[in-house]
């Protein structure tokens, strides 16, 4: 396995007590594989990724338990300096909003070239050449002329391409893309997503794609992990999950997608709101919103039941769900 996250716990200290952002997440990604992590905002999907990258804001954030193994090394016990060398070179991250994620006062060439200068000790001139090469790679027109431009001089789609180029720079084994297309226009979204998928194939990297967009998932992911209130509620190969969800939350998500063949019918919506992370309900966190909830759901936290070899569901009544 390239990356294995086991029983990860992360909490944030806030003025109103500890917020349990991640409560025992377990997932794994192999080389060449794409894992989509799906969930609403606040479900802990980004926090998990930040913990993997080692870029949690500490304080207030803190990893309180679990293991993150990358190429068979436990990242959580690694010295900061060793972890730093892995960031960027071994695993890289693509952020949602490239405009704020790129430094506004440095040229894109500087920011791309910095990867080579810091990790490889490349000369200033060679780094610049590498930066231009990367920009060509992500199909930015006239890369040689634009290498000295600042982030705000690019369009949204072009900026996100630069983010991708930066992540690819050192050809890492794993890329984590945190909502890479959310901030973009719909027409540009597809282009950027296609580029990302294509480059992933080309370099044979592992990809963790964090998103709340089911459409994106269906196109590029191999398997999927659905998160709710800091836990994984269902994991499955993409197509099986779409066909037969094994958790009522996943089911609700799938039913709330507008579909052409359902035109005229009222759109389904999961009732209620996600729980506050300071006060996660006892039992199954989803129980107050679940149409199938019974007494046991309000008292016992469901483990991730094995549905089949590759599938898991954290629902006491996953069989019912799978059939219904």
């Amino acid at each position, binding site marked *: 396995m390239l990356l294995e996250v086991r029983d990860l716990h992360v909490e944030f200290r806030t003025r109103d007590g500890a917020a349990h952002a991640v409560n025992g997440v377990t997932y794994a990604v192999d080389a060449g594989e794409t894992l989509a992590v799906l969930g609403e905002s606040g479900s802990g999907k980004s926090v998990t990724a930040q913990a993997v990258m080692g870029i949690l804001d500490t304080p207030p954030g803190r990893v309180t338990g679990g293991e993150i193994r990358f190429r068979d090394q436990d990242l959580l016990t690694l010295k900061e300096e060793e972890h*730093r060398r892995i960031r960027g070179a071994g695993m*890289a991250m693509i*952020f949602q909003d490239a405009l*704020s*994620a790129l*430094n*506004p*006062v440095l040229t894109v060439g500087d920011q791309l070239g910095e990867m080579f200068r810091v990790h490889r000790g490349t000369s200033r001139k060679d780094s610049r050449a590498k930066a231009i090469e990367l920009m060509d790679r992500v199909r930015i027109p006239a890369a040689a002329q634009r290498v000295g431009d600042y982030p705000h001089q690019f369009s949204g789609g072009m900026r996100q391409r630069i983010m991708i180029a*930066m992540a690819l720079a050192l050809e890492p084994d794993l890329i984590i893309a945190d909502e890479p297309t959310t901030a973009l226009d719909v027409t540009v979204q597809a282009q950027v997503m296609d580029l990302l998928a294509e480059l992933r194939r080309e370099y044979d990297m592992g990809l963790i794609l964090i998103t709340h967009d089911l459409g994106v998932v269906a196109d590029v992911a191999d398997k999927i992990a659905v998160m709710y209130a800091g836990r994984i509620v269902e994991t499955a190969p993409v197509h099986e999950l779409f066909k037969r969800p094994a958790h009522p939350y996943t089911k609700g998500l799938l039913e709330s997608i507008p579909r052409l063949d359902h035109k005229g019918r009222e759109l389904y919506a999961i009732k209620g709101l996600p729980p506050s992370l300071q006060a996660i309900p006892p039992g199954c966190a989803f129980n107050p919103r679940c149409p199938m909830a019974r007494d046991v759901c309000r008292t016992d936290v469901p483990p991730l039941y094995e549905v089949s070899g590759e599938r898991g569901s954290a629902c006491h009544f996953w069989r019912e769900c799978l059939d219904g």
Partner: protein
Amino acid sequence: MARYLVRRLLQMIPVFVGATLLIFLMVNVMGDPVAGLCGERACDSATAAQLKREFGLDKPVWQQYATYMGNVFTGDFGTAFNGRPVTELMATAFPVTIRLTLVAIVFEIVIGITLGVVTGLRRGRPVDTAVLLATLVVISVPTFVTGLLLQLLLGVKWGWVRPSVSPLAPLDELILPGLVLASVSLAYVTRLTRTSIAENRRADYVRTAVAKGLPRRRVVVRHLLRNSLIPVVTFIGTDIGALMGGAIVTERIFNIHGVGYQLYQGILRQNTQTVVGFVTVLVLVFLVANLLVDLLYAVLDPRIRYA
């Protein structure tokens, strides 16, 4: 850029005219402009009238102002209270005050920014709280009190420095006065840097820099500091004019014969030409410093440059 520069220069004109006119009017209100010209005694009325005619003081104020400004732009600032040309007084006073201001600016940069960075990175820790409290105290104690106390302690009691500065005002004697002059601004630079660092520390691009695997030092210096210092640099730039104008208190405490001292003399002896001349130059310094800061701002922040 050039068009912007021209526009800013044009904008400066009304401010310059307004400020100097205001001072001109104030000084005319201040008292008898010929009072200082007959030596220690008061002028008799015939001489006074003659002097007034001679200096054009019987004309309307705006005409006097126009004449005066006309002279200023040919380099004639009039006669000072000691009977010498005002420009001669300036030639001895300004170098002293400029040296004093430079010392103050160096303190602001070195101590202010360092403390600001240290506290901004450790927000909420004991260091931060202590420095923050210290800056509040420095801001709350008026400069003249700070000056008198430091003079008493360092100059008189412990004898580390000379309590008053010799007429030539060499740089080493200006260290304490420079610190006093800088004190309030220094506290302010610290707070501004701290706020700016603390705000930018959570910025997405800093997180990106960490995610790129850059060493902490590089993240702080190249990414965090570069952005955070933009408002600080602009503050320090504009502070130049304020420091030179505010040096009057410091110069009085340490008996430094700079701009403030000469102005004070001019006011005491009711010599209008000294006062208006010096203030005119100070206003010019303020405006030019502001202009330079605006240009610097554009250099530091490419978003402005290309907007």
